[in-house]
C-alpha cells in the first residue's frame, strides 16, 4: 500500500501549443523544457503533494491537443476528478476554441468534475485576451479561473495545489463521488445508489 490518503486524477486539455506540457513539467519537475516536441497521445505523470499534513497523490494526464488524438484523450475525461482547460492569452484562436472544448467536456466528463480555466503565457508582451475576458468566460461556465506562466513559474504551483485542496475538501464532505444513473461515477470507492430509497455505501 502506497503512502497517501487521497488519489485524484487531473486531466489537462486545450489546443496544441498553449503550454499544457510546460505547465505539467513546471509543476512536476520544476523546469521549463526547451524545445520539446508536441505531445503524442497522452502523457502521464504523478506528483504527491501535502496539504494539512495529508499526502495527496495527483495523477496528471497531459493530453495532445490535435483533433487526431481526440479518441484517445476523450477516454480519459470520464474518470477525471479535475479538468484543466488551458488557452494561450497571446493567441485569440486558442480562446475561440474554448466552447468546442466545453462541448467535449459536457459530453464525456462527469457532471461533478472540477473545472478550471487557465490562461497561460502571461509573461508574454503580446497579450490578446484581457484577463477580465477570460474571467468572464469562466464565470459564465461556472469554472475556476487562473492566469499562469509556465515559463516564469507564476501561479503554476498554486494552480495544482488549489485543485488538490479543493478536491480534498470535496472528498471530505463526501460530495465527490456520487452515483446517479445519468452521469457516470467518477470514483468507485464510495458509490451511493440513489434508487428505490435504499442506499448502500461502499468502503
Amino acid at each position: 500500500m502506497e503512502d497517501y490518503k487521497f488519489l485524484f486524477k487531473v486531466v489537462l486539455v486545450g489546443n496544441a501549443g498553449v503550454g499544457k506540457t510546460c505547465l505539467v513539467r513546471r509543476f512536476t519537475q520544476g523546469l521549463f523544457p526547451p524545445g520539446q516536441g508536441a505531445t503524442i497521445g497522452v502523457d502521464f505523470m504523478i506528483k504527491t503533494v501535502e496539504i494539512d499534513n495529508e499526502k495527496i497523490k495527483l495523477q496528471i494526464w497531459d493530453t495532445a491537443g490535435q483533433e487526431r488524438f481526440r479518441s484517445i484523450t476523450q477516454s480519459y475525461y470520464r474518470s477525471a476528478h479535475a479538468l484543466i482547460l488551458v488557452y494561450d492569452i497571446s493567441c485569440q484562436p486558442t480562446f475561440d476554441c474554448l466552447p468546442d472544448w466545453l462541448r467535449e467536456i459536457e459530453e464525456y466528463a462527469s457532471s461533478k468534475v472540477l473545472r478550471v480555466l487557465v490562461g497561460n503565457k502571461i509573461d508574454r508582451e503580446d497579450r490578446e485576451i484581457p484577463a477580465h475576458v477570460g474571467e468572464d468566460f469562466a464565470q459564465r461556465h461556472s469554472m475556476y479561473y487562473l492566469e499562469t506562466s509556465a515559463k516564469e513559474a507564476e501561479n503554476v504551483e498554486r494552480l495544482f495545489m488549489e485543485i488538490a485542496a479543493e478536491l480534498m475538501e470535496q472528498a471530505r464532505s463526501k460530495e465527490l463521488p456520487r452515483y446517479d444513473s445519468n452521469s457516470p461515477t467518477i470514483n468507485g470507492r464510495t458509490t451511493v445508489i440513489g434508487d428505490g430509497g435504499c442506499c448502500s455505501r461502499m468502503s
Partner: protein
Amino acid sequence: MASLGKNEDVLCTSDGIESVYNKLVAQEEEINNGLETLLSRQCHLEAKLRGITKVLPNLQIVHSDAQQLAEMITFTSTLAENVSSKVRQLDIARSRVSECQQRVHDLLDLQLCSDGVQTALRNEDFEKAAAHVHRFLSMDQHLLKQTADDVAEDCTSVTNSFSLLHEAATQLGAVVTQKFDEAVHADDLASVERFFKIFPLLGMQDEGLVRFSSYLCSKLKDTALKNLRLALETNTSDKRANVIYADTITLLFEGIARVIEIHQPLIETYYGPGRLLTVASYLQRECDRQSKRILAEFSKCRHLEKIVQQVNEYMRTNNVYSKPTDKLDPKELDLLLGELTIMHSRAELYVRFIRRRVMNDLEIGVPSGDTRTALVSELEAMLNGSELCHRMQELLSSYLLLERYFMEESVKKAVVMDSVEEGSHTSSMVDDVFFIVRKCIRRAGTSSSLDGVCAVINNACALLETDFCEVLRRQLRQGYPSGYLDLTQAYSVLHTSIQQGRLQASDSEQARLMFLTYLNNADASTEYTDTLRRSLMDEVPSVLTTMSENERVKLESCLSGLGSVAASLKAVIDYGMEQLRVIVIKPRVNPWVDTFLSVSHQLSEEDFANYEANEPFVQNLIMNLDGLLGLFRGSLTTSNYDTLVSILTAEVTAHLEKVVIKSTFNRLGGLVFDKEVRALVSYLTSTTSWSIRDKFARLTQMATVLNLERVTEISDYWGSNSGPLTWRLTPADIRQVMTLRTDFRSDDIKRLKL
C-alpha cells in the same frame, strides 16, 4: 601523622603505642624501598648520558652532509631543466622537419597527381583519377603556394598544377555524377555502387548521399507500386484478401528495412558513420508518399471514411434517430478492425527500427555533445513529424472510434439476445459481454500502441460501469415479486418448465427467476472483472514488449478503472440483496421469531424435560428458515447465497434480540434459551461457508447472562475474568437482561459493579 594526631588517646595505652610504632616501621620500610629503586636507576641514567655525549660530534657531520646533498640536488635539477628544454627545442625542430618533408612530399605528389589525373581521366579510370583528386584535396594549398614561393621565388608551376587539378576535380565530379545517373537509368546496381563510392573522394559526400538516396527511393517506389497493383488485383476469395492492405504496407516497411540493412555497411565504409540520418530522412519521404497511396486505396476499398462518418453520426445522435436498418452490424467491422490494428502495429515496428538504427549510427559516428543532441532531436522531429506517423495517428483514431462502436453495439446485442440456460446460475450475456470486452482490449494490444490499449480499457470501463451495470440494475429494479405462499409451488412449476426447456412460467415466476439470475450475473461479473484486470496486467506488457516503468504505471492506472467497475457491481448486488431483505426475508422472518413470545421461558423441571424433548420454538424456526433458504440455495451463486444467509442471520438475530427483551425467564428458561441459540448457530453455520458466529455474539452473551445461577456469578465472566471473550453487551445491557430473570433480585442487580 594525621592519623596519629587525631587519636591522641591512642597513645595512652601500650597497645595503642605499639600499633602506632608498627605503622611507623612499615612506613620507614616503604621509604627505604623507594630510595633503593631510585639509586638503582642511577647507573642506567649515567650510561645513557655517556652515550649521548659520545654521539654529539657525529651530529655535526650529518648536518654538513645534508647540506652538501641539497646543493647537489639543486645542481642536478637545473641540469635536468636545461636538458629538457633542449629536448623540447629538438622536438619542435623535428616536427618542423617532418612538416617540411610533408610539404616536399605534397609538392612531389602534386606533380604526380596533376600528371596522373589527366592520364586516368583519359583512360576512364575514375577510381584512380578520384584517388589523385582526393590526395590533392588533402593538401594545404595555401601553405604549398607559400613554400614554393619561399624556395624558388616562383610558384607558377604549383599554381598551374592547382588550377589543373581543380579543373580535373570539377570535371571528374561532373563525369561521375553523369555516370551515376546513367547507371541509375540503366538500373545497373554495380555501377551505381561504383560511382557512389567515388563521390566522397571528391569531397562530394552530400551530393553522393542525396543521389544514392533518391536512387534507393526510386527502387522503393517501383516495388511499392507493383505491390499495390497486385493488391488491387487480389481476388476477394484470396485468403489474404481481408488483410491485403496491411500486407502491402508491411511489404513497403520491410522493403525499406531491407534497403537499410543492405546499404548501411556501404555507406558507413565509404562515407563514415553518422550519415544514416540523411539517408533515412530521404527514405522516410518516399515512405510517406507510398504509404499515403496505400492508405488511400485502403480507405477507398474498405469504405473507411463512410463507415467512420456513419458511426460518428450514430454516436452523436445518441442512437435516438437512427433507424435500425441503417445501423451498421458490429460484426461487419470485425475484419476491418483487425486490419487497422495490424497496419498500425507494422508502422510502429518500422518506426522503432529506423529510430534504433539511426541512433546506433549516431552513437558511433558523432561524439556525444550538442551536435549529437541536435541530431537526435532532428531524428525525432523527422519521425514524429512524418506524414506516416500523422496518418497512423489518424488511423488509430478511426480504429478507436470503430472499436468503441463495436464493443458497445456487440454488448447491446448480447443483452438483447440474453437467454437463461438450464442449470446455469447466470444468463448468457455475462459470458458474452466479458468475451467481447476482452476481445476488444486484446485486439487493441495488437496495434502495438499503449495509448490505443489504454483508450480501449478506458472505454471498456465506461461501458461496464455505466451501461452494463445499468442493464443489471434495470432488471433488479423490476423487483422480486413477493407472495410467499405461492413461492414453493411457483418454484417447482418454474423448475419443471425449465427442465422441459420451455420457459412458460407465469409472469411472476419468470420475474423471480430473472431477478435471481441478474443478481448472479452481477456476482459473476465481479469475478470476471477481477480476472480481467489481473490477466491484462500480465498480458499487455508481454504484447507491447518494450515498456518503460512510467508506461507500466500508466497501464496500471487505466486498469484500476476496472476496480471502479467491480465497486459498481458490488453496489448492484447490494441493491438486489436489499430488495430480497425487504421483500422476502423481513416479512417472513419476523413473524417466525415472534412466536418466541408465545413460548413460556418460565419452566418447571417437568416443563423443562418436555421442552427439551421437542424444542418447539427453535426447531420450527429452523425448519422455516431452511424452507426459505432452500428456495434460493440452488438458484444463487455461492457468494450470493452466502450473502443472503448473512442478511438472513442479521435479521434473525436483530429481531430475536428484540423479542427476548420482551420475555421473562427463570433459571431453566435461561438454560433452554442458551440451547436454542446454540441450535440456531449450529444450523446457520452448517448452511454457509462464511462465519456467522460473530452476528450471534450479542445473543450468545445474553444467553450466558440468562443462564447464570446467581447475579454475582457474572463476575466469573466479566472484567479480568473475561478471558478471550469480548463483551458486546454494555453494562447497561447486562443489567437489563438480568432483570428478565424473574428470580434475580433487582437490589442485587443494582449492587453489581460492572
